[in-house]
């Protein structure tokens, strides 16, 4: 009896998995689909807004993008809401993925600080303004957006070791290429190189603390790190709990990553 039951269950599960569904066409359809996002990211908030009341049953949040993409490929979910740049990297490296043409929103990235740490915020803003003015920031972006950044070696980035001004602790989540990525025992990425230059301008040594994305706000508010820099989107809600520098990325698109065979342009 038990065996027959198990067999029936297996058949039922299989038929569920292979049930035909209409292909995705517009982001409007996502409002009633199973979605995923990385926990604590703006992708999660966008997915929550899309789904409304149904977010409890339809939204899954993962600790890492890799997990979300794996769930997508296995058909556990129909779309991952994430930033366009890391999404493009997934498309290059992983077969069978597509990005929906219509983007979900555009966001600005900034560096996050503990609420009330105005001294550091203005010092970093000054450094950022200088970098924007003399082209340093553009050069860093060009290096990662155009070239093959996997060839960048962590040891080539100047962390200003032994600086007299002490250390500048920066929290990040090094699974967000091309912004930050762990390679061997070191880190590369746009944010890392930008923070290295900022640290140099402040006369301090850069120390990267790599933690989970949803632990970053906690780390900066408890003063565990001086600032957090991980492609963090500026939102009103986040502004209540931390201070932000000026934007260093404007108009970063949030997109839906889907399976290529599940998408009809």
């Amino acid at each position: 009896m038990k065996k027959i039951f198990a067999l029936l269950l297996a058949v039922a599960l299989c038929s569920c998995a292979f049930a035909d569904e209409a292909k995705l066409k517009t982001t409007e359809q996502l409002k009633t689909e199973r979605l995923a996002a990385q926990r604590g990211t703006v992708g999660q908030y966008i997915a929550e807004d899309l789904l409304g009341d149904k977010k409890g049953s339809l939204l899954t949040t993962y600790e890492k993008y890799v997990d979300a993409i794996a769930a997508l490929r296995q058909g556990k979910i129909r779309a991952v809401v994430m930033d366009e740049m890391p999404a493009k990297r997934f498309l290059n490296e992983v077969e069978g993925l597509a990005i929906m043409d219509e983007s979900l929103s555009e966001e600005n990235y900034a560096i996050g600080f503990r609420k009330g740490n105005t001294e550091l915020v203005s010092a970093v803003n000054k450094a950022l303004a200088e970098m924007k003015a003399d082209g340093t920031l553009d050069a860093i972006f060009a290096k990662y957006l155009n070239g093959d950044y996997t060839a960048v070696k962590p040891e080539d980035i100047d962390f200003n070791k032994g600086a007299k001004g002490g250390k500048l602790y920066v929290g990040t989540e090094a699974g967000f290429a091309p912004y930050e990525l762990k390679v061997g025992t070191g880190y590369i990425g746009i944010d890392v190189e930008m923070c290295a230059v900022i640290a140099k301008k402040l006369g301090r040594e850069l120390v990267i603390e790599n933690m989970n994305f949803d632990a970053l706000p906690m780390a900066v508010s408890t003063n565990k790190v001086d600032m957090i820099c991980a492609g963090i989107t500026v939102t009103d809600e986040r502004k209540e709990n931390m201070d932000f520098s000026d934007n260093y990325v404007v108009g970063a698109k949030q997109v839906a990553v889907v399976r290529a065979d599940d998408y009809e342009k």
Partner: protein
Amino acid sequence: MQMTMRNNLCSRREGAGRGDIVLGIFALFLLYLLYDSGFFTAAAWQDFNRRFYQNFVKDSRYMMLVDGLKSTIFMTTGATLIGLAVGLILSVIRVAYKGGADIPMLNKLANTYITVLRGTPAMVQLLIWNFTIFASARDLNTQYIAILAFGLNSGAYVAEIFRGGIESIDPGQMEAARSLGLSYGTSMRFVILPQALRNVVPMLFNEFIALLKETSVAGYIGIDDLTRAGQNIQALTLEHSQPLVMVAIIYLVIVLFLTHLVRKLEEWLSRGRRG
């Protein structure tokens, strides 16, 4: 006891038991699934090899796992030592109180400690240690915080293991020792504890094996332990399965090795034991 032994012998003589048949069918089914998914074709092997090279060989990426393993072992060893020390102190307090020592406050304290640390998840404790208690300690190596958190957590479990071991010794042993004129402390040290230790060693080892696996949440506070190293490789190659399976295999090999050690140790300890 005799009954079950005889039953075991009987079933063994009958050949494979029902469990073996189920396992066999399951294994065949898995093989079929692999075959069906084209795992045994040359192309699949090539793909497997290419991904293996990407994940572990290219740019010496296996070193990330080696470094992670070092960190895991370092944390487990440190936490084990703290756990042993804390557990021993706690169990001595509790046993001594039961044995008539006048230390009600200490006993209460030990009880509270054990209740709180056993009653909350190790990961929550780790987060509290790192982000609340040691919030301002930034130059301190995070691994030491993890060692402290895991060690103090383990101490609560070890205390219970020790206490169980001591209480498993027949009270007659203590009475006999005392009646021979030995003091409470001396009887404890030379009569009870040596026997208790023999009982608790396997359980202690199991606790350390559990601890080894527990350290896998250390990535949460920014430590690149073995699990986190696998995730770092995932982020690098965007490959999901291979790094995780490799991490699992490494954990399993260590645990199997430790389990083997426990068995040897158990055999060695039960040498010359009567009955």
